[in-house]
């Protein structure tokens, strides 16, 4: 059975650079439509069921805004 | 057990004094007229299994000193006037970060590349900051090989105690001449002042230490500078040193430091033999300057003698507050005043 994962994104740490969106191989992430208190549009797991806990999003994130869990 | 008196070159005596003070790391670069000091440290620091590096420049050397001192080590560099110019940024950083370092300047004639003969043209540079920003640091001016050794030894303690650079401002004459010297006993490292602010060796529970002169918030920076200047005020009360002879009955007081003061001592003795009432006032700490004592002597006539176009003379004028006639006699470009030259000037002023 394939690995499944879960992401926790700290919306206030995220600066909306969207490098994680680019890095995700299964298109879990996209920019949120709601901004955070800084005015950034943080990354959001819009298709969380697709997450395979590969950690690519974590690897490229400059703000350590994402924590990755293995289910 | 006292040491015997040894005949030593000034540069080497300062080196030996630094080794005995427990200098952990010396970083230097060759420049005349202090190369014997660097060579002495090269041999003796390695003999003692301490750190010696001939750096790639004076700039690099002062930053190696700063880094070593930031860990709490006793660290020193030496150079001469143009090299000290290169070190001004590093000295400013050490003053801004409250890092104790020892810097020896064996001064030569300037400005620019200048010459290699002795001069006292770095007084402003040493006592007025030299580098950028609001700061002062300890400046010690020896007049002999003995005093150069003593003040170098003590510079490490003073730097540690007051958390700032201590500069020994010698000149090429003192660096090159050979005199008898009794060296101080090596300092017991256990008697060094503790440095809880240093980076490295972080014990469990100690918050992170940042050795840093950055202050980007103006309100906080102003307070930090004011606090530092309060420390300077304390130093002005306790650290001032000078030597005076025959000032009480003097019609004319010679004011001089370092080699100029040696010359003035001879000139004063010659003058006294001629019945002229001449005294000598010799600052030993150029910073903190003996402002208070000069204020007390205000009203007397002064002749400031320097190997420059006139730098300390401004402080003599300043601190006698307009109550004294202050004359100046200087030689520069590497010329050294003779006792006869100074006596002639004394006689010209006293019209005798």
């Amino acid at each position, binding site marked *: 059975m394939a690995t499944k994962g*879960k992401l926790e994104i700290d919306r*206030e*740490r995220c*600066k909306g*650079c*969207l*490098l994680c969106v*680019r*890095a995700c191989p299964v298109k879990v992430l996209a920019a949120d439509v709601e901004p955070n208190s800084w005015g*950034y549009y943080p990354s959001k797991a819009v298709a969380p069921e697709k997450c395979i*806990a*590969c*950690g*690519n999003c974590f*690897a*490229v*994130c*400059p*703000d*350590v805004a*994402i*924590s*990755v*869990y*293995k*289910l | 057990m006292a040491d015997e008196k040894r005949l030593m070159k000034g540069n080497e005596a300062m080196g030996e004094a630094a080794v005995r003070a427990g200098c*952990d*790391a010396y*970083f230097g670069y060759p420049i005349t007229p202090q190369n014997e000091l660097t060579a002495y440290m090269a041999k003796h620091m390695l003999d003692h299994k301490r*750190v010696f*590096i001939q*750096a*790639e420049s004076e*700039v*690099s*050397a002062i*930053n*190696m000193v*700063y*880094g*070593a001192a*930031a*860990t*709490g*080590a006793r*660290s020193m560099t030496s150079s001469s006037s143009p090299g000290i110019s290169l070190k001004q940024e590093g000295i400013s*950083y050490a003053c801004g*970060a409250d890092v104790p370092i020892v810097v020896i300047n064996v001064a030569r004639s300037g400005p620019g590349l200048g010459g290699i003969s002795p001069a006292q043209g770095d007084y402003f540079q040493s006592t007025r900051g030299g580098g950028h920003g609001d700061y002062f640091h300890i400046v010690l001016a020896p007049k002999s090989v003995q005093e150069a050794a003593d003040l170098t030894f003590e510079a490490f303690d003073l730097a540690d105690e007051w958390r700032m650079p201590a500069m020994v401002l010698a000149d090429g004459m003192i660096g090159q001449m050979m005199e008898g010297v009794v060296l101080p006993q090596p300092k017991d490292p256990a008697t060094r002042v503790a440095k809880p602010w240093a*980076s*490295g*060796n*972080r*014990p469990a529970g100690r918050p*992170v*230490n*940042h*050795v*840093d*002169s*950055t202050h980007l918030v103006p309100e906080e920076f102003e307070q930090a500078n004011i606090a530092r200047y309060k420390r300077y005020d304390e130093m002005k009360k306790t650290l001032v040193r000078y030597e005076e002879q025959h000032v009480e009955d003097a019609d004319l007081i010679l004011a001089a430091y370092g080699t100029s003061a040696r010359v003035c001592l001879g000139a004063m003795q010659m003058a006294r033999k001629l019945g002229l009432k001449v005294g000598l006032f010799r600052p030993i700490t150029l910073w903190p300057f003996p402002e208070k004592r000069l204020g007390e002597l205000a009203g007397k006539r002064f002749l400031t003698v320097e190997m420059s176009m006139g730098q300390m003379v401004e402080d003599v004028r300043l601190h006698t507050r307009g109550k004294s006639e202050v004359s100046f006699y200087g030689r520069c470009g590497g010329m050294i005043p003779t006792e006869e030259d100074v006596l002639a000037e004394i006689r010209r002023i006293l019209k005798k």
Partner: protein
Amino acid sequence: MELIYGHPKSLKPIQTKYCPGCGHGVIHRLITEVIDELGMQQKSVILNPVGCSIWASIYFDFDSVQVPHGRTPAGATGVKRMLPDHLVICYQGDGDLAAIGTAEAVHAANRGEKFTTIFVNNAIYGMTGGQMAPTTLVGQKATTAPYGRDPVEAGMGYPIRVLEMFATLEGTRYLARGAVNNAANTRKTKQYIKKAFEAQLRGEGSTMVEILSQCPTNWAMDPVESVEWVESDMIPFYKLGEIKDELQGSAVKEAAK
């Protein structure tokens, strides 16, 4: 549910001043992950000079010494010689290392000083608003090269491949170039950093890891465009990989294979 990728202990959990997408954030994380793995948080010292790297001391949860621009390797020499059992990190940008501090960098490397240099190469001056750097590419625009870097007509010089230059110095032992443009390169870069830090702790040196880093703000791009520019323009010129590896540790591993 098991946490597999989380916040390093020796990195402070606070938002950084770095621009969105800036490589510094990733590099800080890689360094602190390795420090955590090596258990060296109490015995690490970072030297943070001038440029965006001045902020490093705010985010690393260990001791630091702030040094003048370009003098970082000299300061690090002083620190490491006094604390030989500590992990000493000389953290520099391209102006600090390859412009004002080239003498200090060359000579520390040549002396084989045992600290590790982390060289963040973003081909521009970031903090001061985008001036030309020694590693700016030919034709690349900067505020002081508004028509693009021109070595011929305007005498602006050529971009410097620092590691290749340093490889000629006998004092250097490990020189590697990584990037943080994508996950694969980021992971490789972490391995280079770990190898360099382990070498330092074994007493080997000098070691340097150059890391190509995106600077969206001063390249006038958005973060995704900026990593694409790293891929299209920087990596072809600044080759990734281990440029020099003469570590004893590596020789042992090779022999064991």
